[in-house]
């Protein structure tokens, strides 16, 4: 991984970082991938991918109204909101 790849990855993950820290971050990621790459030594052709250990079937709830999502309560958690909306910096110039 080089600095350009890391810059793209940081943006994709929406994580800010100073350019002077890039070498340190790249080194740490490389260390982890060196460990993870040991998977390449395994013969996995006859195994299907497993998403969930119990392979449960999905559950649906009845289409009924409840009062779980209180707009007022949820907006109160926001760092910045008005009566009806989350407030963010201007998006469209």
């Amino acid at each position, binding site marked *: 991984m080089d600095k350009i790849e890391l810059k793209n*990855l*940081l*943006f*994709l*993950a*929406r*994580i*800010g*970082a100073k350019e002077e820290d890039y070498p340190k*971050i790249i080194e*740490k*990621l490389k*260390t*982890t*991938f*060196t*460990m*993870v*790459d*040991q*998977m*390449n030594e*395994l013969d*996995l052709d006859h*195994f*299907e*991918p*497993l*998403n*969930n*250990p*119990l392979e*449960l079937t*999905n*559950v649906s*709830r009845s289409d009924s109204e409840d009062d*779980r999502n*209180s707009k007022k*309560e*949820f907006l*109160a*958690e*926001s*760092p*910045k909101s008005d009566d009806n909306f*989350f407030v*963010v*910096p*201007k*998006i469209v110039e």
Partner: protein
Amino acid sequence: MNFKDIRESFRNKEISAKELTQDSLNKAKKYGNLNAFISTFDEDALKKAEHIDNNFNDYKDLALGGVPIAHKDIFCTKGKRTTCASKMLENFAPPYESTVTSNCHQAGSIMIGKTNMDEFAMGSSNETSFFGPVINPWGESLVPGGSSGGSAVCVAANITSLATGTDTGGSIRQPAALCGITGLKPTYGLVSRWGMIAFCSSMDQAGPFARDAFGCAALLDAMASYDAKDSTCAQRDKVKYEDTLRNDFGKLKIGVLKGIDQLGISEEVLKAYDNSKTVLEKLGHTFVELDFSELSSGICSYYVIAPAECSSNLSRFDGVKFGHRSDSSNISDLYLQTRCEGFGEEVRKRILIGTYVLSAGFYDAYYRKAQKVRRMMKSKFDEFFKAVDLVFLPTTLDQAFEMNRTSSDPNRMYKEDLLTIPANLAGLPAISFPNGLANELPIGAQFVGNYFSEDLLLNITHKIQGVTDWHKITP
């Protein structure tokens, strides 16, 4: 006092819920240097204790009636700060209650506080918390394990007799082993994940900590319930685990691993493991050797799948809807700076790994391959459980280690989970219990059982604790 004695004293009116609660709150302050708590709720706890004392008959027969408890700060508690040990949620007070804490509340327990942990449950030493590391009561320079380190310390230091934790790759069993207590990771789906802040949704599972299997059984009785709000929650008949401790499961066939001395496990841990095998033999059980040469590939799979799911789960922390927000004049910088400031180094690293393995061109090489390893692990256990009733192995490679070890070898910390991760990948239940002491530090061993065999896991641990004293030794 352990949980059983505390509950009996309350039921016999030898001690009031208020006295028990005040005692736990006093100890939480006395052992403040251990940094086991992120928040304590003195006033609310004493108020609930008073209510319980005033309505004694309504509470005396409940599973946790009158008993103080601590919850890992990963469970949302309505109107009470829930941080996940992150700056991102430093001042977050959820508008709803998790099913686990709600169930414990209804079972008559009294929450005295929320315990410290690795940030967003990412760590094996409790050093990644925004609120500082937790100290192991067995040695002031030693880690308690993680990520549920605060809960394990809380029970080990006798602040409360019960605490809740979560186990994604070993986060209940490893700290239980390093702190000399008992901890159970239930089958994936037995305990609701509603209101439990998500790290790796396909592996996260909440479970109990106590000094012994009896306490774990009682707490699991309270925690486990079918919950329609968690679509991965298993719909099953309710088992009363405390009652099943009296069952006789007969003579068991116990699987032990061939070549276990080749895995890098310390001499002390291997010696304790061998001693426990002698105890099991005396109880009439027999051993079957199992070939599990694929065991170490579990770590590789885990450190792809868990970061992948974490990168997705933690995308909700964007500075807009709740949690920390950076001052920025445009939306792009707001996201970047909020997440840079709000997350610690380990969490940022795992989000980057997860984003990388899920990105175009790398999905097959990493994520899909890791899922195949996961299938291989599950198939291996399916095969084992045709031949044996349980698998027995040490919980950790070594005993509690010194703080700051990560700096010299980052992958050494990940290898800490070598023996615990396979159960998480397969979604199986496992229990860790104290099985020895060396260099004045505790050692743990674990049983892994087949799906929904928590009754058997608790039962055999209870039987072992009936003839040994390792679980009674305190720091």
